[in-house]
């Protein structure tokens, strides 16, 4: 596989960037000097625009040059304005092991202009209020897609207006009829909604709207990539600045084409430097709803959810969904969070003694593994219940409790050693340690080696607070 990289981040060195910086060492960017800033730039940890002197007219040439050097393989497009504006695309690489993916897939939930006003408002509010706490992150939804099923300009305008008044979330206006699209654009003035969509037949009118309203525009050509990039090229030359690609989403029998199209476009952009393929990709998992009525709603939601997840893994930069049940959305938002984390992030946390709240000499002592996700889950359960406790993090070589015990990474020897070196013996009077339920089979060994009494705790850390209230006695 050719690993040719256009503006490739791996071949960029801080020196290359440094050469074109103003070299004032002014610290305005928050870094100690221009070289430190250049290093941050290469690692994509700061934006070029943080360098104020670079934005001065006399440095315009250097700024343009650096912009070109740092240009991502997939263009970044902004939907909406202000704090809640959503950036999509901006991808530097194809595979997540190459570099942290930028701009997590934006998730839109739809409403239609034939829903009652109260239904529209409640769906919008539910989308806006969607929230799940996951290892220190709040997982949210991002956009509202307003669809015209009525084909009536007035109805669409009224619906968009209602949505626009109800939420700060950016919008996607969905209709293939330019007159209806314009009615929607008038109802959300200067809000830069994403217009869906320009096709090979309506493209000129849609392009005019995108230019007039300064809004990003989706180019849509289902299952025909040549037509799609022809359309994108036409729109670009016509003067549309921000274009998003919709190669078509097909469920079931169309799954292979869907996955192939997204994969080919992203490879052409990242490995082949194809500029027209290097635009954000829109996926539409809600296509599973076109057979509504033939199947149980739960089955449609199930299919929509797994289709969305597959598209997050395969390069979608934004998705439009209809199902808004927690059970079907939760796997999607968690997967998105997983796929968009820094792949260099260590699997393990530092072993040793962690203190929660203000424990005293009678407070409970627990142990867990140093696998990052195990640790953060346990820590968040202890923290959220405001329990005062000591937690000994044992070096299990980054394994979870059950696999650590099974795979001899989390052994009684290591636990006894961790108890000894933690200094806990000087902090508490008692000699009792709570073991994770999943490590119960080695509790006898731990008692023998450490001399501490082992209390077998719950199998899941969510029950720790209750366990301590019910069972803990120093």
């Amino acid at each position, binding site marked *: 596989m050719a690993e040719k990289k256009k503006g490739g981040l791996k071949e960029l060195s801080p020196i290359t960037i440094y050469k074109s910086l103003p070299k004032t060492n002014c610290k305005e960017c928050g870094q100690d000097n221009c070289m430190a800033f250049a290093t941050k730039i290469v690692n994509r940890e700061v934006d070029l625009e943080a360098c104020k002197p670079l934005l001065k007219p006399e440095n315009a040439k250097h700024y343009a040059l650096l912009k070109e050097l740092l240009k991502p393989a997939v263009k970044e497009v902004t939907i909406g304005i202000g704090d809640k504006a959503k950036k999509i695309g901006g991808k530097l690489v194809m*595979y*997540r*092991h190459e570099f942290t993916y930028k701009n997590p897939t934006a998730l839109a939930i739809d409403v239609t202009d*034939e829903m009652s006003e109260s239904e529209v408002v409640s769906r919008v509010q539910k989308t806006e209020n969607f929230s799940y706490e996951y290892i220190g992150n709040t997982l949210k939804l991002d956009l509202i897609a307003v669809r*015209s*099923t009525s084909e009536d300009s007035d109805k669409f305008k009224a619906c968009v207006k209602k949505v626009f008044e109800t939420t700060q979330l950016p919008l996607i206006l*969905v*209709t*293939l009829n330019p007159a209806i699209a314009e009615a929607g654009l008038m109802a959300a003035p200067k809000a830069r909604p994403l217009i869906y969509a320009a096709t090979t037949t309506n*493209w000129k009118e849609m392009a005019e709207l995108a230019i007039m309203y300064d809004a990003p525009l989706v180019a849509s050509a*289902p*299952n025909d*990539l*040549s037509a*799609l990039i*022809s359309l994108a*090229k*036409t729109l670009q*030359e016509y003067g549309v600045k921000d274009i998003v690609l919709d190669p078509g989403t*097909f469920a079931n*029998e*169309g*799954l*292979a084409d869907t*996955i*192939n199209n997204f*994969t*080919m476009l992203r*490879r*052409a952009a990242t490995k082949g*430097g194809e500029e027209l393929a290097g635009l954000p990709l829109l996926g539409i998992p*809600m296509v599973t*709803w*076109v*057979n*509504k009525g033939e199947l149980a709603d*739960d089955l449609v939601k*199930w299919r929509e959810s*797994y289709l969305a*997840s597959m598209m997050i*893994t395969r390069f979608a930069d934004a998705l439009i969904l209809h199902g808004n049940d927690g*059970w*079907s959305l939760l*796997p999607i938002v*968690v*997967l998105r969070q*997983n*796929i968009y984390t820094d*792949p260099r992030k260590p699997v393990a946390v530092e072993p040793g003694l962690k203190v929660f709240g203000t424990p005293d000499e009678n407070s409970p002592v627990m142990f867990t593994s140093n*696998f990052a*996700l195990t640790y953060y*889950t346990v820590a968040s359960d202890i923290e959220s219940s405001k329990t005062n406790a000591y937690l000994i993090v044992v070096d299990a070589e*980054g394994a*979870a409790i*059950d*696999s650590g015990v099974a*795979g001899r990474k989390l052994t009684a020897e290591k636990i006894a050693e961790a108890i000894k070196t933690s200094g806990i013996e000087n902090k508490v009077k008692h000699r009792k340690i709570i073991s994770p339920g999943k490590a119960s*089979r080695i509790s006898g060994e731990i008692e023998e080696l450490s001399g501490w009494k082992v209390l077998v705790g719950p*199998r899941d850390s*969510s029950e720790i607070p209750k366990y301590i209230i019910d069972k803990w006695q120093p």
Partner: protein
Amino acid sequence: MITTTHHDTDKKKDTEGLQLSSDILAALAKFQQIELEDFHLDAKELEILFTPGMAAQILPKLKLPGVAGSKPSSLLSTTFMPPIETYPNKISTVKLGATKSEGGTRGKTFTIGGELSPAFYTFENVIPHKPIVTLDVFDMEVPLSKAVKMHVKDVVGDPAAWAKLAVEKFGADMVTMHLISVDPLLKDASPKEACKTVEKVLQAVDVPLIIGGCGDPVKDTALFEEVCTQFSGERFLMSSVTLDMDVEKCAKFIKKAGNAVLAFTPMDLNFARELNRRLYDHLAREDIVMDLTTAALGYGLDYAFTNMERARIGGLMGDQELAHPMSSGTTNAWAAREAWLKMSADWEPRELRGPLWEVTTALTLLLAGVDLFMMMHPAAVKTLKDVTNYLTSGKKVDPANFADWVKVRA
């Protein structure tokens, strides 16, 4: 605006034909390409030289003087070239199960692996062997989540009945017989006793079997040796051999019995390479499946996904030590609390959330290149099988046959 590309011969030509300013020449010497804005070019004859392969990259960006600024009145036409790559290597195949004529007793066998491209890049190459699913069966009671338990509660404790249910009702391609009763910290059953269970399951179903141990390296070695001695020729997949076992000893008796091995390592490709190297001393490439460790969605799936994706790409690019089919213990998805925990009403019912958690874990790893899925929930198994059928159907879609989602009254 015109974009030009620096090339030694081009530059010479340029200086002969066009008088470029020294600024531009200096920039050309330093950078692969520069863009000139507000640039006018008057020329009777414009000769542009392209090196082979560059044309496609440059042409779409080229706007000739006179055309710039005018809006197209009709659709421009350009062709998308599918970005096909070639790879120096392919993934090994492994055959599982053996029929009577092959020295075993199975009614069917499966071959996995053999990929020529990354997972489901079917625009590039067909998938030679469809990924398959094996369902977990345990030889004693184990803690199961409610969503799983409701489907198997009648057969827990009866491995033969459980295996039959898995194959006949849940559509499992294979069955994994987890002989956890031999665990010294559980029942400490003898390998001979465990083999009786294997015999019963062989009688109950005619699909190939995977034989799972208890995780204790010493006991598993003894168990696997007994299984290999008693059931020579069945072409079991022995799950699993790890670096803390006596790898050489295991490899020898597995080879002698004609079985295959699942090489299990904890999320580190260097360990996977090391284990495979040690297995190569006694086993053929076609006897080895890798398990690089599966973490649940939300609990390290990202590590598992990237690890497997890298292994697969590495294997195709010529890293022989990673060019093996991959197995995933997808059942690990149930270790995530979101899969089984009763949560507030907003996130219920968990009877759907749980199996969907397993499906999402499985499909993410399907797209990383997994060939063999060890799974638990019947609905998750059905979806995985449906999706692999769709992805390997080889049919092209006519969008006209798909209803328009834009106006659907959902």
